[in-house]
């Protein structure tokens, strides 16, 4: 508790390049960029593979590999190889680890749509892209969003670890605090990261409620 008071009570932690607002924005910006990039790769690929049924083995393989790869190791190796002149050495492992959950869940979501539904959609004269956009995506949306949520949470955590190889953001408090043995920094930074992760999770829950049809979530009461 004392650590927290020290950390959050220190006015120096609230302003400037090393202040909480600046680092929060850094963390947010970097995470959002990584998530957007991952979604741009994972969602179309998952939709395509789920819709056509081709290349399903790729999805399973990528998910297994991504789970086994240690993030810190990947970050260190890429930064050693490519230097820190650009953000790519950090962005690449973040995206590489965030794409698989998006890919797998999008794929599973589309593939899991009842074949009868697909049949009915084609049978009524919807074209391929219409079947995808008007039927498969809305029905698979809960899983697509789940994939995005898992990826987002993972990115937020990995971005914190990436402070070790020089990335800005909330992870800095931890890495710098450990180096200088200022544990109020370490604890304060950790609390901020936890709150940030929970807020991310909460945001996706809200998005889910707003975008998933009540007919799919079955979250509606029968009107009288």
């Amino acid at each position: 508790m004392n650590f927290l008071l020290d950390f959050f009570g220190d006015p120096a932690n609230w302003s400037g390049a090393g202040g909480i607002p600046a680092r929060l924005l850094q963390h947010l910006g970097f995470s959002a960029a990584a998530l957007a990039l991952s979604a741009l790769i994972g969602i179309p690929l998952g939709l395509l593979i789920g819709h056509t049924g081709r290349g399903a083995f790729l999805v399973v393989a990528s998910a297994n590999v991504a789970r086994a790869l240690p993030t810190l190791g990947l970050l260190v190796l890429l930064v050693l190889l490519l230097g820190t002149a650009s953000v790519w050495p950090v962005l690449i492992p973040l995206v590489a680890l965030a794409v698989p959950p998006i890919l797998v869940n999008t794929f599973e979501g589309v593939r899991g749509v009842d074949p009868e539904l697909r049949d009915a959609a084609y049978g009524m004269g919807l074209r391929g892209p219409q079947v995808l956009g008007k039927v498969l995506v809305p029905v698979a949306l809960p899983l697509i969003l789940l994939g995005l949520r898992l990826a987002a949470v993972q990115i937020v955590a990995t971005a914190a670890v990436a402070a070790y190889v020089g990335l800005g953001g909330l992870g800095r408090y931890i890495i710098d605090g450990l180096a200088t043995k200022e544990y109020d920094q370490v604890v304060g930074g950790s609390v901020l990261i936890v709150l940030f992760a929970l807020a991310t999770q909460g945001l996706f829950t809200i998005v889910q409620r707003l975008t998933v049809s009540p007919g799919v979530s079955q979250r509606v009461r029968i009107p009288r």
Partner: protein
Amino acid sequence: MITFDSVTKRYADGTVAVDQLSLEAPTGEITVFVGPSGCGKTTSLRMINRMIDATEGRVLLDGTDVTTIDPPTLRRGIGYVIQQAGLFPHRKIVDNVATVPYLLGWDRHKARTRAMELLERVGLDTKLAQRYPFQLSGGQQQRVGVARALAADPPVLLMDEPFSAVDPIVRTSLQDELLRLQGELHKTIVFVTHDIDEAIKLGDRVAVLRVGGRLAQLADPKTLLSQPADDFVREFLGRDRGIRRLQFVPAGRVRLADPSAAAGGWRLVTQDGRPRGWRRGDGPLEPYGTFVPGRDSLRTALDAALLTPAGCAVAVDAEGRVVGIATREALDEALAEAADG
């Protein structure tokens, strides 16, 4: 009219699903494809709207080879009803029904008005329009499926085992509803089922298919029951084929007698000319069964007789007033006549 012209479907692995099928489904009639699983009935149906394309031969829709039409365009002009209804779970019932009108570019208001009209037409409360599919029972969903297929008023309706997944009571009412609708709409319907009773009840013409996709017999139900083409058809129709056939023999042929002709001391008790029951001596009032000679079949008359201890069926007019009875002897005569052809 839908024409199958020597249509064959052979899959890459060599399996033949449909073999040299040639038949016609006349305009304004219900043609039923019936047969055991693996007989190619669903494959045949799906070749009409090009969900599957034939390997050889042609499927013609009013003389036009369907393979010359772009599949989505073709399908928007053909209603399609499937087993689990296949309703879109993320859309309200009204929007489900309006799917094809939306696709055809109708304006929203017109499409929804049409959808509401159809919901009423298939016997659904329009209050259900704002619900989602999961909030409806299986039978209700199936009615929505029929309404959705009818939404753009297509001349042709394809129905693939549409009533197989609902319980028998609901199925009967859906079948009756379809016949009532067809009486008003006169669509060209191709209906697939594995249930011979359903085929006989609904079909103007019934095509019996055998495993391997070959046509065993194409006939109206009455001919099918009285003159099965071969042992396969005979077996498929089942052992009670004779009894079923009676539903195509009008009960008007039965010789009627005065109620006093009942044997065994049974007396028909009536009130205001309508039957109340059978009584023997001072015994209790026993149940009775009725038929309307000008309307019902011999099967109904026979049923009516078997349901009472008196063994006679009560003939009534359309208002339910007694016009006579059919004694066991009279029914026997009618049965013998029916057996002769």
